[in-house]
């Protein structure tokens, strides 16, 4: 599903060159639930961003669904992300000015869908995360766990093949974290969605199919 070959990411300033990722090669199968662990600053999020085509590697190749992505234009990349990928962020990144339903509809805005379809799909996604009774609320009126569930609904509303989650339980207490994890596991199990999750939490990581560890930009496990 996702194939990374010799991925390198170098951050350059006038005086310093920092190697954030060093020759990472990774194959992630369709339907796999993979977690990435490692200490802060080891390059986990950078790797996830590169997989999500939010960032570009300095070297190396990425293939997603057997498609090379390095030649895609801004518009094609946007479309690719919209169709294939869903994102969940540690700090939710909901748009506070929009109601829950509008937040969840967001990925569908960039597709040819009618307002009616959007509403139907977003309500369905919210039902899956158990928040269909909060559609008129604004994000600021929700708890952290509820916000993350809205973020999951937004990630799955477009039925992407891959979900990339950057520390989805990082801001939550363990009970809420477990709840979120359950949703992700069910999603992977029932819908066959490929999930890549960055986490600091060993317990969460052990619930996934495979664990990849990074240290100073290199893969150590």
């Amino acid at each position, binding site marked *: 599903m996702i194939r990374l070959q010799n991925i390198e990411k170098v951050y350059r300033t006038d005086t310093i060159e920092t190697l954030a990722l060093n020759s990472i090669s990774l194959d992630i199968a369709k339907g796999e639930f993979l977690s990435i662990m490692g200490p802060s600053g080891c390059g986990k999020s950078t790797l996830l*961003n590169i997989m*999500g085509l*939010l*960032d570009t590697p300095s070297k190396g190749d990425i293939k997603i669904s057997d498609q090379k992505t390095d030649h895609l234009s*801004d*518009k094609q*990349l*946007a*479309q690719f*992300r*919209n*169709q294939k990928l*869903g*994102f969940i*962020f540690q*700090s939710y*990144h*909901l*748009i506070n*000015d*929009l109601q829950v339903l*509008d937040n969840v*509809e*967001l*990925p569908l*805005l*960039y*597709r040819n869908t009618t*307002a009616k379809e959007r509403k139907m799909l977003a309500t369905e996604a919210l039902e899956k995360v158990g928040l269909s009774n909060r559609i008129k609320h604004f994000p600021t009126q929700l708890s952290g766990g509820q916000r993350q569930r809205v973020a999951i609904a*937004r990630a799955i509303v*477009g039925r992407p093949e891959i979900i990339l989650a950057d520390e989805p339980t990082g801001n939550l207490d363990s009970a809420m974290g477990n709840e979120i994890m359950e949703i992700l596991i069910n999603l992977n199990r029932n819908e066959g969605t490929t999930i890549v999750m960055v986490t600091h939490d060993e317990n969460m990581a052990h619930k996934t199919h495979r664990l990849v560890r990074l240290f100073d930009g290199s893969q150590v496990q």
Partner: protein
Amino acid sequence: MLKNYFKIAIAVLRRRKFFTFISLFGISFTLTILLVLTAFIDKVVGDTYPDRKRDRSLYVTHLQESGKNAMNSSTLSYYFLSHFVASLKTPVKLGISSGYEGTNTYVNNKKLAVNYKYTNADYWDIMEYDFTEGKAFSKQQIDNADKVAVISEDMKRDYFGDIPSVVGKYIEADNVKYRVIGVVKNVPITSYNLYSDIYLPYTVSKTNFKSDHGYLGGFTAVLLAKSKADVPGMRDEYAAMMRRVPFQSKEYDKMYSRAEPYLQSYVNTGNESMSGVTIVLITIGIFVLLVTVLPTLNLVNINITRIMERSSEIGVRKAFGASSGTLVYQFLVENIILTLLGGLIGVVLSFIAIQVINSFHLIPNLVLSINFTVLGIGLLVCFFFGLLSGVYPAWRMSKLNVVTALKAQ
């Protein structure tokens, strides 16, 4: 999608009320100035009362004599107009009138400032003043130097009070009593060559125009051609005549005077080295530039701040499939919503400003109104503002790297 953009635009406006106020104030205030200005220009340029035959008229308002060490420029003398200009063959009528002069008169011991001007008979044939009662003075009355007057509606009300008819009554101006023979609808003071409170036969003037053979004086003229097609010929004939006019003094070796269309004559400064049209266009241009560019720059600045505050949203939208182009479109739509909102407020403010100008008679007899042209210009200006002040910030933020944008929260 537009509904979504609209929702977020309104939410953003409500979130930062001070920024919103500054933006809306800038837009609406600028628009008000532009709308009042255009209403004013529209009135001055577009209102053809009482010279409804403008399309077949040419106006003579200045004469300039110049030499190495001297230059003299002014309106013209009655002698010049009746001697030289009257000799032209193309004009079918030659309307001559003086500029308005001010004097005081007294009604029930109360001082009343009045303006009066002198005209010939052709003036009344060319101009189509609307008479509410009576009529203009005839050539016979002018030749007889009858002390008769045509007055404006305002003059009638101010001098005689609210009575139905004043024809036959006497009005005193400059210590002379004139018999009122007609009342005309007001002319705004902006039509300064046609405006007056009292119109008198030029022959009743205390100055003897016929004995003064200088070229410069206090008169202007309107030349009426038989048809629109004759106007260029009339202009050329005037120019040819000017080449034949002899110099009156050795001090001068050049003489300029032109028969011009209304607008050119309206802004004629009498200075041949700098056309009035150029001066007016430059002045209006600078003014419009200042009142539009400064608020636009301000809006650009505010928009950058506003948009950069939303970098997390930009990151999310990009992550979920918005291309840079889509984001530019979104922010432009939001900005156009803001400017159109400012535009609506501006239109309301303009109505109020124009009502104030009209009801307080800030400019005598000038009744401004917002018409559809002006409204259309206003809305176009708003749209232009929306684009102009939104394009740069929208473009700048659309180039934002997704990861950087997401980290900004």
